[in-house]
């Protein structure tokens, strides 16, 4: 199994991208976007997570099995969030009765 090594340039670019996204997060925190506040914050967070996983953690160049493991972890997180939200979202449905 050959190890892929990214160039210094790629690492620097990713690092700068992460810094930029952090800057955006803190700047956006001062602007009230209403219901979009949480959406913007989460989109930025997920993007940063993907950059770290794909490049710094080398998932992009890893074997299929590693990719399956990463996808499995995300799928399980989705199960936790989705089924918990199934409760929270539908809790008020009976309020009128």
């Amino acid at each position, binding site marked *: 199994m050959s190890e892929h090594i990214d160039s210094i340039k790629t690492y620097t670019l990713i690092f700068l991208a992460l810094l930029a996204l952090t800057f955006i997060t803190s700047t956006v925190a001062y602007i009230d976007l209403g219901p979009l506040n949480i959406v913007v914050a989460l989109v930025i967070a997920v993007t940063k997570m993907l950059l770290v996983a794909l490049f710094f953690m080398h998932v992009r160049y890893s074997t299929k099995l590693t990719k399956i493991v990463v996808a499995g972890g995300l799928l399980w997180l989705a199960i936790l969030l989705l*089924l918990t939200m199934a409760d929270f979202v539908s809790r008020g449905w009976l309020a009128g009765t």
Partner: protein
Amino acid sequence: MITAALEEREHYLNASYGLKSWLLTKDHKRIALLYLGTITLFFALGGLFATMIRIELLTPQPDLVSSETYNKLFTMHGVIMVFLFLVPSIPATLGNFFLPIMIGAKDLAFPKLNLLSWYLLVAGGLCTLGAMFAGGVDTGWTFYTPYSSTYSNTYVIATALGIFIAGFSSILTGLNFIVTVHRMRAPGMTWFRLPLFVWSNYATSLIMVLGTPVLAVTILLVGCERLFHIGIFDPALGGDPVLFQHMFWFYSHPAVYIMVLPGMGVVSELVATFSRKRVFGYGFVAFSSVAIAVLGFLVWGHHLFVSGQSVYAGMVFSFLSYFVAVPSAIKVFNWTATLYKGSISYDTPMLYAFGFIGLFTMGGLTGLFLAALGIDVHVTDTYFVVAHFHYIMVGGTLMAYLGGMHYWWPKMTGRMYPEGWAKLSALVVFLGFNLTFFPQFVLGYLGMPRRYHVYPPEFQVLHVMSTAGASVLAVGYLMPLVYFLWSLRYGKLAPANPWGATGLEWQTSSPPPTHNFEEPPVVTHEAYDFAALLEEAQVG
């Protein structure tokens, strides 16, 4: 003289001596024995708390302990038995010892990580025991908020920290098993030649790795709220108490399968060996373990039917909970089908396997009662639930653990245990278990709530039966402890394959050499191929 004969050959037990050779060992077999000693101590302690609970419940009045002490007793019983005994029980002892040997490997993939995981269990256990000696904890093993995060004046943080640390032991064991099964199988050991014990431990490991971190996060959040008043679960701080239950049961329901799946693996081995037949529907039994691991993550909401969870979510969780019964039933039916026309022998391990099949089936079927939205409202937080999960965890897991211990004891120690005493102990455990827990189904259905030590006098007869059963059960558990220890010195020497079983672990000597095999094994036939074994014996 016997000892002298055993000492002639070098094996993992006499390869080196001294405390250091054990405490710094990287041999998975020695680490398994370290685990065995540790969890036996935890089991004894958890059992002591159970004994005090049962003695208190002999009479309707509070006479042995106060309400506060009683709350601490059932909490410590649950915490120790679940997190420090049942979760590590089969994987960390029998799994640790036999998973590498069964796939023809020299050790686990990460031997140092394996040792670290034992130290983490000990550290977690000491932390929890420290909390206990300092004054205990009274939240119940489930640590429900906001009681645990705001109101309880007991040692919640210290106990939870112990569980947090022990959780990492479980994650590391899971990780080690997964990598070992993927990377270290002997030549010819394909996935569909793996013994079913390996399949079930693999499925268990998936749950350990995917579920346990969520428990760790949940514990940290309780700590944040309790120490720094950050509102997560407490409504007064803007939190949601039901969120705790979602997160807790996201781990703790699959944890039930962490406890029972390895037991199912043991039973598959026992049923095959003592029926002298390949397990009927091998592929179905193997995949049903994985199906249980996956489906087990979709059902946690059935613990929240009366906790203020939305009725619609409740309906979804109820529906999904029924699904888990399917792979469990596949296993039970396939074990039964394996017995059909098998050449059955009633050795001690098989008696435990029979016990498991019957008791697990009762535990599983009463689980369906609890997954039904309507019935669950009636029996929530009653002794019906207590009886149900003890049928799974004690009637299931513990029976399988004891069955496995008897089955593999000759391999682990090189000694045979006294068969007559062992058969008697299996019978005593089975009778004692049913006398303890069957009355609890009736008690619960009649309305006896769990976690109360004062109850209406009309329940006393059933409580007395249950306590009487518990004392029988205690005798049943003490017997193996005594004769196993006795056998270490006086037991007959065990041959390499005392049961005529097929697995790779029976092809190496008893006890095995440090690197498990004299020659690296090559696998040429599928698991449980008794015809091939017979042929080899005839050729030999």
